[in-house]
């Protein structure tokens, strides 16, 4: 029986990774869309990003080298990811719930990563165990673990109350939206209950993570209620992990493309550019729209043919 939590955790990690990678591949493989950028574009150089300016503000911009700044993107992306700056700026009431929820998730992720790191250190540099580094790591794990669960629960409850009471949100809320938040509250709630009651220094949690890393399915020293709460927590968290990327909550993948490919996708199509090379293939696809001004002559055609014909003029002649 003690193997089951390990197997469930592995399965969840696999589903999570496959779903995220799959979604990433899906967006990556989509065809080059038309430019649809939205300013400010964070990588604009020359101080333009600050006020939302673009390279098109320069006289004969195509004769000048493009100034883009990765640092500019990072300056926007990092605070946006960590602190949900856009939400804070434009929807403060929602941010007070959403930020703790998301930051809680980040802290739990950090907690897990640090436990993995501790496990690696313990395996490869056993002499370090008991040293200052381990002590620091241990405290950070505790802060991230407890903090993450508390913030996550607090945020999820706040979001749930807001969804159920705010008129503007309520009518847009589906049963699944409520389920999702309840799922977070229950999964994090069980986990918090377990560590508060039975594992305040995260010993068994860290052992579990360490065992997962080296595929060692040893039973953890628990029985009775602690064992049950532990098993339920692992299963719930695993199911949650697998569930997230299968829902609209995979918006962390969508958001990457929304920002990098769409909002900031301002690269012009100059002669010889990669965009320029893609154009013929895209235009040579068949077009299947049925309205008469497109399909009126009944002949199948490509986008290139549809774009270069002029049925209105033909009619006039």
């Amino acid at each position: 029986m003690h193997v089951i939590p390990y197997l469930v955790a592995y399965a969840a990690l696999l589903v999570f990774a496959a779903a995220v990678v799959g979604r990433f591949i899906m967006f990556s493989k989509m065809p080059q869309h038309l430019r649809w950028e939205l300013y400010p574009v964070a990588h604009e150089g020359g101080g333009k990003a600050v006020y939302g300016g673009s390279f098109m503000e320069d006289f004969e911009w195509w004769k000048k080298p493009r100034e883009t700044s990765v640092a500019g993107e990072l300056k926007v992306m990092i605070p946006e990811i960590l602190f949900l700056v856009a939400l804070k700026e434009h929807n403060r009431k929602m941010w007070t719930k959403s930020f703790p929820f998301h930051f809680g998730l980040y802290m739990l992720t950090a907690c897990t990563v640090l436990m993995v790191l501790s496990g690696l250190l313990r395996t490869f540099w056993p002499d370090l165990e008991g040293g200052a580094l381990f002590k620091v790591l241990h405290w950070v794990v505790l802060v991230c673990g407890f903090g993450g669960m508390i913030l996550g629960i607090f945020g999820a409850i706040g979001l749930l109350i807001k969804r159920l009471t705010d008129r503007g949100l309520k009518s847009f809320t589906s049963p699944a939206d409520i389920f999702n938040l309840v799922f977070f509250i229950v999964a994090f709630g069980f986990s918090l209950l377990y560590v508060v009651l039975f594992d305040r220094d995260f010993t068994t949690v860290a052992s579990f993570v360490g065992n997962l890393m080296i595929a060692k399915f040893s039973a953890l020293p628990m029985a009775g209620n602690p064992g049950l709460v532990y098993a339920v927590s692992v299963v719930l968290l695993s199911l949650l992990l697998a569930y997230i990327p299968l829902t609209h909550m995979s918006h962390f993948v969508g958001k990457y493309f929304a920002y990098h490919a769409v909002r900031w996708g301002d690269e012009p199509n100059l002669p010889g550019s990669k965009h320029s090379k893609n154009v013929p293939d895209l235009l040579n696809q068949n077009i299947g729209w049925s309205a008469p001004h497109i399909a009126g002559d009944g002949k199948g055609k490509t986008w290139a043919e549809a774009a270069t014909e002029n049925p209105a003029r033909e009619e006039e002649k």
Partner: protein
Amino acid sequence: MSDQGHPGDRRAELKQLVELTDISADCGPLADIPLSQQIPLPPPFDKLEDEPQPTPLTDAAKEKYECELDGTIAVNIPKPESKEEEERLVKSFLSGMKKLFEEENNWIFLKPLVISAEHCAKCQTCSDSCHIYEESGGAELYRPSYRSEIFRRIYHKYIKGESEWVHGEIDLNWKAVARLIELSYRCNLCRRCAQTCPIGVDNALLAREIRKVASQEMNIQVKELHEAGSVLQQKVGSSTGMNDLVLKDNMEFIDEDTEEKTGIKVETPFDVEGADILLIHNAGEIMAWPENPGAFHTLFNAAGLSWTLSSDLAAYDGINYGVWYDDVQFARTAMLHMQAAKKLGVKKIVLGECGHAHKALTVIADRILAEGLNDIPRESCMTVLLDIVRSGKIKFDKSRNDFPVTLHDPCNMTRLMGIIQPQREIIEAIVPAERFREMAPHGVENYCCGGGSGFAIMSGHNFSEWRHRFSGRRKFRQILEAFGDEEMTKENPKYVCAPCSNCKGQIRDIISHYDAWEKAGIHYGGLVELMVNAMVDAKPDFIDWEWH
């Protein structure tokens, strides 16, 4: 904001709580927002009771067209004659929805579409950024996310076959389709909401995709945009109906008139092969605001630029209405523009004062241009005009523009192209600093004039009243606030500089609707008119302050 408070404060008073599922209800119009629900404007327009009362639709219109959204009509969708026809139209709508998500049929916007269709967190952050929603007093129907969420629910249930438990209830019938298409024309496509979305969901894109389904699959379009718009442009050369002969006649008249006003000889060159610049105006300028092309040509000649107009089909009218509703119509017009430039062998195309023409040819068309066409760059007139100012080839006297001036930022140039500073630097050179005041907010966070996405030229039934009451009201509020410290009389004329033809048309209509020239001395015009008004070598008083 005015001292009456933020429009959002009135949301609590909202009585019309429209549910998403109401879209398919057989219940008559979903909203009828009384004037009393709207927020009063700043003085001297602060009395709601003094505002023009909304005109109801005529019985004839109600009988003939689908009008169960909100008491106005933009699209003129004829009522189906039978249940079978309704079913056929619903099927056609679904067929179009399906094509939107097919690579072959919508590679053009597939990625942004899927992101917006699948990743909304339904946080409603977008609502507060929408001028239409805000100025309606928070009407549920005008939430930017209302139409998007219906679109998403239809997509999940009817295209992907997913559960309503996950994505929410929706029933699709003809009422829902007709209302959704009509509702796609209650958005200016300004993308201010997309700018504030924490995830990057784009309600404007979804509104445009709904318009595409209607046009490209169901053959349902707004007459002013399609038949009298892009089709007319492709048929005779301009959506104004002006063919090349009339164009040349008109330009001759404009040249003479401009010379009379400025004392500077102007001759508009046509079809000059090998010129550096092909200048493309919005032909609406030639017909409605001839002083604008007159001023452009005066400046270009005085700066010694090598330039020409084209008299080729569609190439003397920079408009491209397809950008608002139909990818194929958009591509056809863009191709005509590019082919004309290629034929003349110009070094670049310069777009006149028309925001959507800027965006259409410079940005949106960019990635449909194969090798051989993408070697002709497209440039904003703003940077060319700024280069003229910086070159010192023309002397300007700021004191000639000694009146209050505010600047409207066309969404297409600013939020969607990032052209913010050139027009400000020009104004700095031609308007006394103490006379210029920015609107709040401005630049990349500006508000749409209310005429965006074709609204400025849509006036059927009582739709123009709708756009004054809802989509244009925020801009009028901003203008009044910008001039808030001025004496609001005709004796103290004030200039709203709107360097975009459609914005200018919308601002003209708002001023006319509120009689703001007579009551507050608010006038409008383009940027080049202000430049020529300050030109030392030109006779003074180029700007005509008589209302027109």
